[in-house]
């Protein structure tokens, strides 16, 4: 994998410093309107501060109110800090992108016939303009190559420094503004408006500039707001109920109870979790155009995979040479090897490789002429000293040898059938006019792919292989790779159709693609991953771009999506489960003076009512900080099936969430008591 923009591991010091600053900036209530839980906390913090001020002014003991107010403010700051630090990591990545966006002067072609050029600032280009880009120039805007071939360094956006070839026509004709032409020249037709280029979009995405809440985030926010209201009712009504019971309730204590009950943990970490999800995608060099797409990735039911490049290496490879009757196996292999010496195609090289692995070697005879493959002969090989070696399509080789069907040995005919049936391609080999064997070329399934599909199946994701191969070949590869279904002899329209059928059944579909003809399917898919090396149309149609152009990345994308949802659920469960212990800390503390028998509920044995309340508030604040790493890193996803995963996470975050605060509050209480803070 190439380098990525996000430094993994330790959080940068400057990011922390910036985040600390912006934690204070975010205290502005307007910045908190989207987060009712933290906004409510801030309101209580203000009231607590006023109340502490009144206590000081009145010469009353103020240590307790001051501490409560301080910890309430810290709660808000910790939540802000969590969000800021998640944003900060994105900003750091965006800054490195922005640095590459230099103000170039473009060579605008104003008269194509005479190649008349006017230097124009890049930001004045409009779609439709044609510019000339020569070696050493930075491509001024996103566009489509209309003429020329050049090697382009795209490190600015992919981080990969090896230049790639870009040429007019086909799927390699898109260029990205900010990348550099290393050799040759291109004529590029500008396709993007200034400010909405690929790079601009990337920067905006990474920074989370126009981050909108995703549907699930929205639903969760509603739940949290609802819970906040429920607790508001529960706490406010205590004034009346308390008055009846002869309990005078300190508003400060009620405020503290309210803040500890409302789901501040998940409320404070919710947006950090979302941003961190985007961030983790960026770490594997995938850019999502919206958080919605990341969330959808976790929900994918069906994954459409192109056979070539994703499931198989894309090149067929020789796996065996079946000798003709009477021919020694190594002689047949040697003939195949010599016939392939001049063949630079991956297939040819795989035959050389196969021979070498089996200990058969040969040098090209001196003065040999290579006979290249042609569409007419459909074979290739070598001629030397009146000898000849050929390999090629079985029927073509047989025809050139003037053999009739019946003259072919039965063993070879069976071998040809077997190879074809197994989904491979048979090639015939001849030496000096005699048929010596059959090469078995096989579409080799990438190692580990089968395991990953098994993982996906356990996640509940169905895999469908799309291939242009005939059904026999397709079926053979499908079974070898362990996909759930396949579509043979598929056209791009078939992809679109299959996506629509799946979606009609209510399933979410993910696919990846790079060709311009993939664009409609990419746009239709719920998660469409376009290869960065792919056609411009594909890159615009998808909602994610893989900068490494690695189609197997889809699997990682699904995992990141799942991880994001799991993290949200885990923190919500933890947050709600925490409340039980807080009741056992605060309720007896609130009432014990008026109703001493409620002291029996102080099962943690907290040292004093004030200490109990303060400890609960401190725990509530600190738990946010303690969980920031988890929010950023995400809860690990394991492909162990939904039932096991639920039982595991429910144990850790549900039962753990019930127990942890009992321990935490007790420990804090011991410290508070030892330091005589309350």
């Amino acid at each position, binding site marked *: 994998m190439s380098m990525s923009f996000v430094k993994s591991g330790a959080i940068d010091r400057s990011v922390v410093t910036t985040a600390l600053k912006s934690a204070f900036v975010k205290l502005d209530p307007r910045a908190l309107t989207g987060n009712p839980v933290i906004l409510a906390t801030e309101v209580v913090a203000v009231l607590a501060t006023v109340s502490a001020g009144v206590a000081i002014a009145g010469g009353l003991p103020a240590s307790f109110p001051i501490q409560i107010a301080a910890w309430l403010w810290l709660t808000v700051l910790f939540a802000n800090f969590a969000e800021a630090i998640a944003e900060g990591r994105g900003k750091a990545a965006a800054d490195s992108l922005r640095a590459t966006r230099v103000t170039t002067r473009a060579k605008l072609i104003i008269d194509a016939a005479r190649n008349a050029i006017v230097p124009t600032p890049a930001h004045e280009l409009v779609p439709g303009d044609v510019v000339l880009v020569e070696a050493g120039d930075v491509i001024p805007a996103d566009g489509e190559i209309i003429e020329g071939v050049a090697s382009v360094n795209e490190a600015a956006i992919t981080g990969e420094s090896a230049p790639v070839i870009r040429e007019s026509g086909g799927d390699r004709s898109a260029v990205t503004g900010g990348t550099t032409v290393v050799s040759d020249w291109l004529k590029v037709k500008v396709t993007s408006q200034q400010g909405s280029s690929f790079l601009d979009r990337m920067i905006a995405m990474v920074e989370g500039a126009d981050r909108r809440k995703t549907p699930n985030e929205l639903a969760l926010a509603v739940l949290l707001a609802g819970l906040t209201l429920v607790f508001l009712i*529960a706490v406010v009504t205590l004034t009346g109920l308390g008055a009846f019971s002869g309990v005078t309730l300190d508003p400060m204590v009620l405020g503290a109870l309210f803040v500890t009950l409302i789901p501040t943990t998940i409320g404070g970490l919710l947006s950090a979790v979302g941003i961190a999800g985007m961030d983790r995608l960026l770490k594997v060099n995938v850019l999502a155009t919206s958080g919605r797409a990341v969330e959808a990735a976790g929900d994918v039911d069906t994954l459409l995979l192109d056979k070539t490049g994703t499931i198989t290496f894309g090149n067929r490879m020789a796996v065996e040479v079946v000798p003709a009757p009477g021919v020694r196996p190594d002689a047949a292999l040697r003939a195949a090897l010599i016939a392939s010496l001049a063949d630079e195609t991956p297939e040819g090289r795989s035959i050389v490789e196969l021979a070498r692995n089996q200990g058969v070697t040969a040098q090209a005879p001196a003065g040999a002429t290579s006979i290249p493959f042609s569409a007419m002969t459909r074979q290739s090989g070598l001629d030397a000293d009146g000898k000849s070696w050929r390999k090629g399509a079985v029927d073509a080789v047989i025809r050139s040898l003037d053999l009739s069907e019946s003259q072919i040995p039965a063993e070879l005919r069976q071998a040809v059938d077997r190879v074809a049936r197994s989904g491979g391609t048979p090639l015939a080999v001849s030496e000096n006019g005699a048929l010596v064997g059959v090469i078995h070329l096989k579409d080799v399934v990438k190692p580990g792919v089968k395991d990953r599909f098994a993982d996906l199946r356990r996640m509940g994701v*169905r895999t469908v292989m799309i291939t242009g191969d005939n059904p026999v070949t397709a079926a053979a590869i499908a079974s070898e790779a362990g996909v759930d279904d396949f579509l043979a002899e598929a056209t791009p329209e078939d992809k679109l159709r299959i996506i629509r059928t799946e979606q009609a059944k209510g399933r979410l579909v993910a696919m990846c693609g790079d060709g311009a003809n993939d664009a409609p399917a990419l746009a239709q898919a719920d998660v469409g991953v376009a290869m960065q090396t792919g056609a411009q149309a594909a890159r615009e149609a998808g909602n994610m771009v893989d900068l490494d152009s690695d189609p197997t990345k889809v699997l990682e994308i699904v995992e990141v999506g799942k991880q994001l*949802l799991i993290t949200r659920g885990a923190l919500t469960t933890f947050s709600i489960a925490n409340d039980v212990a807080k009741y056992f800390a605060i309720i007896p503390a609130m009432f014990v003076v008026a109703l001493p028998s409620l002291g029996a509920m102080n099962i943690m044995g907290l040292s004093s009512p004030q200490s109990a309340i303060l400890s609960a508030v401190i725990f509530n604040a600190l738990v946010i900080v303690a969980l920031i790493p988890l929010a950023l890193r995400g809860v690990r996803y394991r492909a162990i099936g939904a039932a096991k995963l639920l039982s595991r996470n429910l144990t850790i975050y549900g039962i753990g969430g019930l127990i942890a605060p009992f321990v935490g509050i007790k420990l804090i209480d011991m410290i508070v008591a030892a330091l005589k803070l309350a």
Partner: protein
Amino acid sequence: MDWRGWAEIVFTIALTVAMGWPLGIFMARVWAGERTWLDPVLRPVEALAYAGFGIDRNKGQNWLGYAGAVLAFSAAGFVLLYLQLRFQNLLPLNPQGFDGLSPHLAFNTAVSFVTNTNWQSYAGEATMSHLSQMAGLTVHNFVSAGTGLAIAAAVARAFATDRGENLGNFWVDLTRTTLYVLLPLSIVTALVLVAAGVPQTLLANVEASTIEGAKQVISLFPAASQEAIKQWGTNGGGIFNVNSAHPFENPTPFTNLIEATSINALAFGTVIAFGRIAGARKEAKALIAVMIILVGAAAAAIYASETLTPQPAMIAAGITDAPSNMEGKEVRFGPAASSVWAAQTTGASNGSVNAMHGSFMPLGGGVAMFMIQLGEVLPGGVGSGLYGMVVMALLAVFVAGLMVGRTPEYLGKKVEAREIKFAMLAVLILPLAILGFSAIAAVLPVALEGLLNKGPHGLSEILYAYSSAAGNNGSAFAGLTANAPWWNTTLAIGMLLGRFAYIVPVLAIAGALAAKPKLQPTAGTLPSDSPLFVGLLIGIVLILGGLQFFPALALGPIVEHFQLLAAAASR
């Protein structure tokens, strides 16, 4: 506490579920409009009803249409009942010559019966004419129960629908459930009760001579028929003030068993029917498991509390091996039958009682109150228990479902912002109505006049009253005199909120779910039929309810319990 008591509790609950199961299968047929063996008799009646009211039985309604019909029907029923009660003195069949009800009592009572609550601020035998009982209250015992069941049917259909909006037809659901389910059940049960000694007569009263030679006038009513629907329809409003503790309503342990089982059987059956209509039989069993476990736990907790908690008065009297707390209990039923009934009636928004909850030990009464506060879903009122539990399941699935790495879905329907919004609206109603009104009443002198006790028990009376109203339960902590303008009015508002401010969001959820594609489960889907899910749902029900009401309960039954322990220890 002895093994016979435990056996009685287990047997009662087991028999209840066993009765509910076939009823649910039958009710699913009724909801689906399929043929039943009652068709020869009831088809013509049904057809007549549709013809009479101009109902096109094949015309479906979307959620707004359905909700509109529910509200219109209930509003009309309320107005008619209010007028009837207000002016019962001008109407026939009033042999005792009772006056018309005061405006606030008529308002409270009309709301109470329209909302399936049957809170009674009055003593039936001294207030209601025969006509009011039979043509007023009993009618609503049927149709308010039918309304709840109809809504459950609509919710079930929402889960079965794939991208549609048709939830069925309220008028058809109401008619069919009332005709095919509630009426036959009530007739059969009433006959059994009559055979077992429950009176069924239009005579005003009998005169009896007591052993001391005094003359006693004992009111008589058509009790058996009302008793039957009062239980089956989770209404709970008795003819007599002391409800099923009265020997005319519930004379023997045998009638007690019949009445106890019929509190919950139909609510369990509703879940079975839901599972069949929604195509989620296994998942329905999981819901039933949650209900059985929690109602069983509540019965056990009450039984333990009534038999094990030390009683300071007994200790003071020098009785060391104090028997179970028998205050407020009928000797013919005893603590076990009283405990299981208390759990069933408070878990079910029924509200009929065979013992006085206010006289239970603090924790026993507290558990009864907490059962109501959990949202009346264990197994809940007929229909309302099911849809309440579905709301809980949606919330459980939403929170925990995320932890399997998918946006949550329940029974093939994705749970998204819209559903959560309405679910939270529904959830908010209980704390708002219970805690809101209680907090005001707790400091309002005019409200406190009706209170018998001060201190924690007094607070429990207030909390219980509003819990009972908002939960549409109808039982009370005796000690509160509720027939006063403040109580009648605010309790009625609580009942209205608890019923209709819950129904409308529930139907909105049903509408939203129906419009979604029905998804097939995959290996990545959260299983909602496993023991794990049962545990999860129990956790959500308890934690959600507990978190809302724990502080209030701490000031009521919990502190009373600890005070009592302290008092007992100091003796």
